[in-house]
């Protein structure tokens, strides 16, 4: 009846392809070179199309591992990490990985298979309400019920994941949609009326911030993961130097400011440096950039930075004035705002302020008992830092291993330190190291892990062996859930309830999986083992039998103000 329509139809028919092919083509169009994921019934059409695709595909041993690998890949490279899982258990196993990425603003796209559209809601085999389960742990998710929406939805997923405050986006695809044929260039345009990202800061707000900085006698610059994400290290350096500001970093901000510089105050917060915490409590102006006033940073929020006016620069308006009211909010991208701000700030001497800071720095540096005959975990980290010239990409587990790494490895650049900050996911270190090594094949990647963290995902060692990745796993093995034990020691009368378990011989486990394994029991062997580990071409696990009841100092007990640190006397006694 309508010849025009009919001719469009026939031309479309000539490029008809199944949904699975559309997915693969769209991934390639989005620049995907590497993917992680696990097979299963309802993603078989997709894997069939991946068979011929020019995509490096890494199969983890567990979907959680795959999700952390994609996360480590994304954090090391700045690209979007992609992970695939099947329906039901596959999708459920992604949840921890998605939540980890969500808390730390990591751009991920997760593609999950789903049961046939006509079976949805019937409790079909391997059916789970994936979008329902993952909604609170993704920036956005959706299920595609029409093959015509597939290409557009995947493009939107990449766009949402990688812009604004990044985060994981999940696209759930029923198997019949993977199989259904459609003209691929159906709907290229994105349709996101509710998604607006403000990158450019408001000029008046920027001027107000500059004025406050120029008037401040004792300011502190407090920077977080947002600076890393926005690739703003250079802008940050220029700004801090021009305005002459001391700089403290959050856990996820580590590396975005060179820690060897005098104005670096290192990390702040619960296990941060005394000098950073004192500086924040004394400052008259706190300039937060890409940081979110997390409770591990602020301690008691009511007494946090009590004398300070707060400037808060962040791309996520909801982060501003969420925990601490900002006096001068600036919404936008850190890189853009810092490069505007630098034009308006003036250099001020602030001799008194820097003198005070230098005194704190001198009095309370991070210290440990260097003369100890046992292996101190901090000593291992310093040795790794020394032998890698402070240049390695370092991932961690969660707990003491993570805090000591933050304290004793001196980072030089952004994307060098990769750790689960917000969610605090034990078991993150090994898979993240695998992802980081795949993203950065030429670089040394070291996972500084705890024994209990490593236990959670050590199965991924065989993934590393399969791909001959020269990752280094340094287990600071104290036989405890170290941080839990420390809290039990300090706050539960040293009752070590269930905080230890029987570990395997990690070197033997490593060798059984095809990796190299080294056990270090003497302090004198540490340097040699690190050297051997760095020379190894295959994955290498080094089991350092460290001092069992070493503590992380200082510590701000939960609910206290950040200047109320425990352990300063211990740090002083070690001078």
């Amino acid at each position: 009846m309508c010849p025009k329509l009919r001719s469009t139809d026939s031309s479309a028919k000539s490029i008809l392809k199944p949904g699975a092919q559309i997915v693969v083509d769209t991934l390639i169009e989005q620049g995907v070179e590497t993917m992680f994921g696990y097979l299963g019934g309802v993603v078989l059409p997709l894997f069939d199309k991946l068979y011929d695709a020019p995509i490096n595909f890494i199969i983890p041993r567990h979907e959680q591992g795959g999700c952390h690998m994609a996360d480590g890949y994304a954090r090391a490279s700045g690209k979007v990490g992609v992970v695939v899982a099947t329906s039901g258990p596959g999708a459920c196993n992604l949840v921890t990985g998605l939540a980890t990425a969500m808390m730390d603003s990591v751009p991920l796209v997760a593609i999950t298979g789903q049961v046939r559209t006509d079976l949805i809601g019937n409790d079909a085999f391997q059916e789970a309400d994936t979008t329902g389960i993952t909604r609170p742990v993704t920036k956005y998710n959706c299920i595609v019920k029409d093959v015509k929406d597939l290409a557009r939805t995947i493009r939107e997923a990449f766009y949402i994941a990688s812009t604004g405050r990044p985060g994981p986006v999940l696209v759930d695809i029923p198997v019949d949609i993977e199989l259904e044929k459609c003209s691929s260039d159906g709907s290229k345009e994105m349709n996101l009326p509710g998604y607006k990202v403000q990158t450019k800061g408001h000029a008046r707000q920027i001027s107000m911030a500059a004025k406050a900085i120029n008037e401040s006698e004792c300011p502190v610059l407090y920077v977080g993961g947002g600076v890393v994400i926005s690739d703003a290290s250079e802008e940050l350096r220029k700004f801090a130097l021009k305005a002459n500001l001391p700089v403290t970093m959050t856990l996820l901000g580590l590396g975005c400011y060179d820690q060897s510089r005098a104005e670096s105050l290192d990390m702040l917060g619960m296990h941060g440096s005394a000098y950073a915490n004192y500086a924040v409590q004394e400052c008259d102006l706190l300039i937060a950039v890409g940081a979110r006033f997390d409770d591990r940073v602020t301690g008691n929020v009511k007494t946090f930075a009590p004398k300070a006016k707060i400037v808060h620069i962040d791309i996520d308006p909801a982060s501003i004035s969420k925990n601490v009211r900002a006096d001068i909010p600036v919404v936008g991208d850190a890189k853009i705002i810092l490069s505007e701000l630098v034009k308006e700030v003036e250099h001020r001497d602030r001799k008194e302020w820097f003198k005070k800071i230098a005194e704190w720095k001198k009095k309370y540096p991070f210290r440990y008992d260097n003369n100890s005959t046992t292996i101190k975990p901090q000593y291992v980290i310093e040795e790794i830092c020394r032998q890698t010239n402070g240049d390695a990409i370092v991932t961690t587990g969660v707990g003491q291993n993570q805090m000591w790494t933050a304290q004793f490895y001196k980072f030089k650049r952004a994307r060098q330190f990769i750790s689960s900050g917000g969610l605090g996911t034990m078991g993150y270190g090994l898979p993240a190291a695998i992802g980081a090594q795949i993203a950065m094949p030429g670089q040394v990647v070291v996972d500084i892990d705890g024994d209990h963290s490593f236990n959670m995902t050590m199965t991924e060692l065989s993934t590393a062996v399969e791909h001959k990745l020269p990752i280094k796993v340094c287990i600071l093995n104290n036989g405890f859930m170290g941080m839990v034990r420390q809290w039990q020691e300090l706050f539960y009368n040293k009752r070590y309830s269930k905080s230890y378990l029987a570990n395997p011989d990690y070197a033997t486990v490593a060798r059984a999986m095809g990796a190299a394994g080294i056990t270090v029991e003497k302090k004198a062997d540490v340097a040699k083992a690190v050297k051997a580990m760095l020379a190894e071409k295959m994955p290498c696990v080094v089991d350092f039998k460290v001092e069992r009841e070493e503590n992380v100092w200082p510590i701000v007990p939960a609910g206290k103000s950040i200047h109320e640190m425990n352990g300063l006397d211990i740090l002083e006694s070690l001078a």
Partner: protein
Amino acid sequence: MKHIISALVENKPGVLAHVAGMFAARAFNIDSLAVGRTEDPDLSRMTIVVVGDDRVVEQVRKQLAKIIPVVKVQDFVDQPVVARDLMLIVISAAPEKRAEILSLIDVFKGKVVDIGQKFVMVEVSGPEAKIDAFINMCRPYGIKSVARTGTIAMPRQFKAEDNEA
């Protein structure tokens, strides 16, 4: 303080779950929530009544705006609004009480929409306080059931300047 928040959202599956889930996850209290289509079939409007101090409500507003399918968020707190609830209520109405009940309905400008030997179903709309008052007045007769929409609201379009012009 009570805030009426109006959110224009994409008319897609899962949006209500997303909004409700965010409220639950962030421990915000919803007094009422009403959803319906708008003149544009791609958009729905959610009217959410929240109780909280300014800081809490500011977070509610920002967290709502952050949800991708939420297109626009307004807080009507500082402007004159027309806010209405709709209620259907079934009241026990013995024949000897019926006249009394009907005059009460009349006072509240309610409408009888169903009637039987022992009951009367009434439709009442108006500001929340009026609906509450009507319920209270009906209690002595016996209330069988109540269904309410929750508040929907719009800012007043009429402005004094318009009048002078």
